[in-house]
């Protein structure tokens, strides 16, 4: 086996040590994400489904798809997605 040295940036270190408790799987995320996106658009400060938000901060693929769904629904409904997107990204 080849051993290769890599650069471990502070951002990679942060992602590696992110707490992903409480546990939510990718399958559970997929089951819940449509309801969560609608809830988040209604109330960006919602505290519903805290485990799902933890999962989205720890799983880049699910986060991308959740944000995409949120933007599509917001556009369809004529809503401002800004506050909800900020919450998804951990900025709000």
């Amino acid at each position: 086996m080849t051993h290769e040295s890599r650069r471990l940036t502070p951002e990679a270190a942060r992602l590696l040590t992110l707490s992903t408790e409480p546990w939510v799987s990718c399958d559970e995320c997929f089951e819940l994400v449509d309801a969560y996106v609608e809830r988040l658009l209604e109330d960006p400060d919602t505290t519903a489904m805290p485990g799902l938000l933890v999962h989205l901060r720890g799983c880049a693929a699910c986060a991308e798809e959740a944000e995409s769904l949120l933007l599509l629904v917001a556009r369809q409904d004529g809503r401002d997605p800004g506050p909800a997107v900020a919450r998804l990204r951990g900025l709000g």
Partner: protein
Amino acid sequence: MTTLGRGTVPIVDEPVDWPTALSLPGPAQDMALRRLHALMVRAARHQVWRMRGMLPGVDAVTCEDLANSAADEALTALLGKLDTFEGRSRFTTWAYKFAILQAATEVRRHAWAKREVHLEDADLWSDKGAGPEQHAEAVDLASAVADAMREALTPYQRKIAVALLVDQVPVDVLAERLSTTRGALYKALHEARGRLRAHLAATGHLTDPDGSHR
């Protein structure tokens, strides 16, 4: 047609009860299927163009093919799970997620089709050449994480963690290359993160394995 305002995407003549319309054979089902397929294409196209940056050199026709292919696959997946729709969201939102998942997966697969994924048991160290803008504490943590990677993780966990979070291989691409599932890889990553946090707590780099950094 309902007009929802500037920049919005109207939904045309949406059935009130999608599951019933899709379940009962007849003209209403045919109509519902056509409308649903159009919605899936819309969502898949939205996703493909959102991830367009991953596809340099790919022309618009190929993007459209990707979107249509993803919409077809997603429609099949949705119809197979129609009886699981519980009305916790609007049907259209529920449907869109199938198309978005499939389109995102297709784009990642396409983007990585000619790229190798090196699963090596890497030795990691912090960025010694980090600029002054990088806080010394963050560099110190990176160094401690590199040590924890070597000491607390199994070789498999280390390979998965490095591939996903250091080399940034998309999780569904890695799952396909390893003949496993996205969920299984995320579970392995979750367990690796728990081990790293526990190790860093024991060495004083985290105050609480379930809390924040020191």
